[in-house]
């Protein structure tokens, strides 16, 4: 009973979007019953720029942000886990505070950054602020994972004469794979969903990522009813994420819960 309620609560709104996206607009606004239609999807795919371009932009931004975040967070987390306790604790507290900070408050300064450094309307440049915003969570997750690796393992490798790079490459990174995967997924989710910075950095419509593109579709009026098209956009925009969640449920959930326990 409670389970059904939870399912209905979680899936109901999404299923309603799916249903609406397959119905003609007349049926949605109560005029005529109408049958089923793929018209909304056809419109969306043929719109200018095509919706697929938007999705592709989001994939590019997501992938580059994830790569940059991990490249910075892995060494930082390693060092943080090997630092003396007092310094590590102070740094961790600061990083945790940054993890909870609402990113929207930074938009104005980041906008000026984009203007001064000519980073606006460049997809790859977006990974700079995104990596900055995701670093706190990634550092917390990875530091906790590094701390779980017994120090004896590394000492043994040190005695064998392995350098830092070799230890990382052959001993530590293989053990870190699950934690790296879950942090990477969370970063990708974040960049896929991020709105205020994408909104202010990107103005060319062929460069928009998903979140600002959706807001642009929404336009400004609350009362117009191209809702079939809205619903189709909602479905297409969520489908990749739902797929990602289903494929990597274990990594994402463990990443989130680890973040809570160790952070």
């Amino acid at each position, binding site marked *: 009973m409670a389970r059904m309620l939870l399912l209905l609560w979680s899936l109901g709104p999404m299923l309603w979007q799916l249903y609406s996206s397959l119905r003609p607009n007349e049926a949605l606004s109560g005029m005529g019953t109408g049958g089923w239609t793929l018209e909304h999807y056809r419109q969306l795919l043929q719109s200018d720029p095509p919706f697929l371009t938007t999705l592709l932009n989001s994939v590019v931004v997501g992938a580059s942000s994830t790569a940059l975040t991990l490249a910075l967070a892995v060494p930082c987390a390693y060092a943080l886990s090997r630092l003396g306790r007092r310094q590590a604790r102070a740094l961790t507290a600061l990083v945790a505070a940054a993890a909870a900070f609402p990113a929207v408050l930074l938009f*104005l300064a980041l906008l000026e950054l984009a203007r001064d450094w000519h980073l606006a309307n460049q997809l790859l440049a977006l990974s700079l602020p995104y990596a900055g915003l995701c670093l706190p969570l990634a550092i917390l997750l990875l530091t906790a994972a590094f701390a779980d690796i017994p120090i004896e393992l590394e000492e043994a490798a040190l005695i064998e004469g392995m350098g830092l790079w070799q230890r990382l490459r052959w001993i530590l990174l293989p053990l870190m794979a699950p934690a790296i995967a879950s942090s990477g997924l969370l970063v990708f989710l974040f960049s896929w*969903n991020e709105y205020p910075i994408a909104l202010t950095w990107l103005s060319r419509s062929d460069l928009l990522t998903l979140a600002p593109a959706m807001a642009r579709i*929404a336009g400004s009026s609350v009362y117009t009813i191209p809702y079939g098209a809205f619903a189709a956009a909602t479905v297409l925009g969520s489908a990749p994420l739902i797929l990602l969640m289903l494929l990597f449920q274990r990594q994402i959930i463990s990443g989130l819960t680890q973040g809570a326990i160790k952070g």
Partner: protein
Amino acid sequence: MRRWRLWLLMAPALALLLAIFAAPLMHYLWLSTQAQSVLTGLKPVPIGAQQWLRLWNDGRFWQDTWQTLRFSAASVSLEMLLGLAVALLLHQPLCGRSLLRTISLLPWALPTTVMALGWRWIFNDPYGPINQLLAVLGLGAMPFLSNPNITWLAAVGADTWKTTPFVALLLLAGLQTIPSDLYEAAALEGATAWQSLRRITLPLLTPYLLIAVLFRLAQALGVFDLIQVLTGGGPAGSTESLALYAYLNAMRFLDFGYSATLLLGSFAILLLLCGTAALVWRWSSRLQGELR
């Protein structure tokens, strides 16, 4: 390993963190003492504390503060209650539990702007499903998005739908750290389910509740995406949040100095509330420690 090499490994990440978090706040401190708007030809002109006086006398700022606080208080408390209920449900051994966990987490994973658009259609008057249901039941339609007294509640509902799964997952992680023999011992002593929830679960869950409250409170006080797409701040400004007001000042009124002042003002409110929450928790846990 030598200490300086550790710091060298951390340097790139720390530098980016400083550039993304610390530098903007410093920049706002300076910008809030400048007039930089259309009137000054978008050039910064020092004006001392005038922006802060303007903030103090700005009715719209105080109204948005009240609206943001109202939204945050309502949605965070709802999310904590529902999140606890969902976490308790997902903690029980049920068949298909891991699939249920994933499905219940889906709302959290979807982009806010995507589902905000979805909720606009769900709240539509009269064609949205809720109003159609009300019509079938013979009740009048609810003007969810056009009545200033109701619309903020619609925003609370949409926010609760999206973030309850996150809270539930955090609390579920906490529940999993409580050893089950505590419950078995309590059951042997004849404790009811309510008593063991009250005496075992809640006290041991407190750190997780606190983390969830602090994190959600900070995010809710900065609410922007949902409001901008769901209501645009309307009707009649009744759902405008502090972040949206700051955004409008910069992007629509091109008044950058005042926008920075508003952003700093929001940050101060955030610090004040989250700091108070953390302090209250520390005092109360210390007090409890002394009473024992």
